């Protein structure tokens, strides 16, 4: 499943990185703590968070994530949008809260890493 498929299936709105929606998604990670995402996300993952500041793009770039979904109707800061365009990181927004969105993604086959 690509980011584009996910945007279509879940009615997400694309705020940045429109030209980078073709990447295959390898799974998902949900967290609002940046170091936690750095430690546990994997390349090509979709990151679900409520953080909106430019550092989320730095983390996504570093970990080579497929994209970021901001939940609960949150909008990225203007600096975040600029940085995401510069780095080619898709930023998507959803009015749905994290728990619900993750559940829906999981039902569609987007899973996370399980330590046990």
């Amino acid at each position: 499943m690509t980011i584009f498929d996910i945007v279509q299936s879940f009615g997400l709105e694309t705020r940045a990185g429109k030209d980078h929606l073709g990447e295959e998604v390898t799974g998902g990670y949900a967290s609002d703590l940046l170091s936690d995402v750095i430690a546990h996300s994997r390349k090509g993952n979709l990151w679900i968070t409520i953080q909106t500041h430019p550092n989320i793009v730095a983390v996504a770039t570093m970990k080579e994530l497929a994209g970021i979904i901001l939940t609960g109707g949150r909008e990225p800061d203007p600096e975040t949008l600029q940085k995401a365009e510069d780095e080619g990181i898709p930023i998507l927004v959803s009015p749905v809260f994290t728990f619900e969105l993750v559940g829906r993604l999981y039902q569609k086959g987007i899973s996370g890493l399980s330590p046990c």
Partner: protein
Amino acid sequence: MAEAEENIRFHEMFHIEGGNFMSAGAISSRVKNILKKAGFPGQIIRRTSIAAFEAEMNVICYANQGNLSLFIAPNFLKVVVKDEGIGIPDVNLAMREGYSTATEKIRELGFGAGMGLSNIKKNTDEMILTSESGQGTHLEFVIYLDNQKKE
């Protein structure tokens, strides 16, 4: 810790301004670009930039100012981060995953998970952290180019 300073092929020092969250990640991103241009393997670049990002964020979150130096040698990469700030009263405690002294403001930005130092340790081959309370902190880490530790 990797020695043989005479083998250093490249050295660059970057200034980090404490408290400036808007430019957070700028230094580690420059480090990443340097390593990319130099043609290092992806995993080496990823590990070094993750560790550099966490070190940079520590200076931004807790110090007044600091410097991050990148050294490139034929067999290893070394990063040295020195800051002027409050320092770490108990380094062993600070290394414990989940332990954090972050303020509410820092936590709201998604930092202060108490995972930064352990992320540095996980992604590097050698790490030395020393600090004097009220003076500042000195961090060094090394990534060997011939020994690829898993992330």
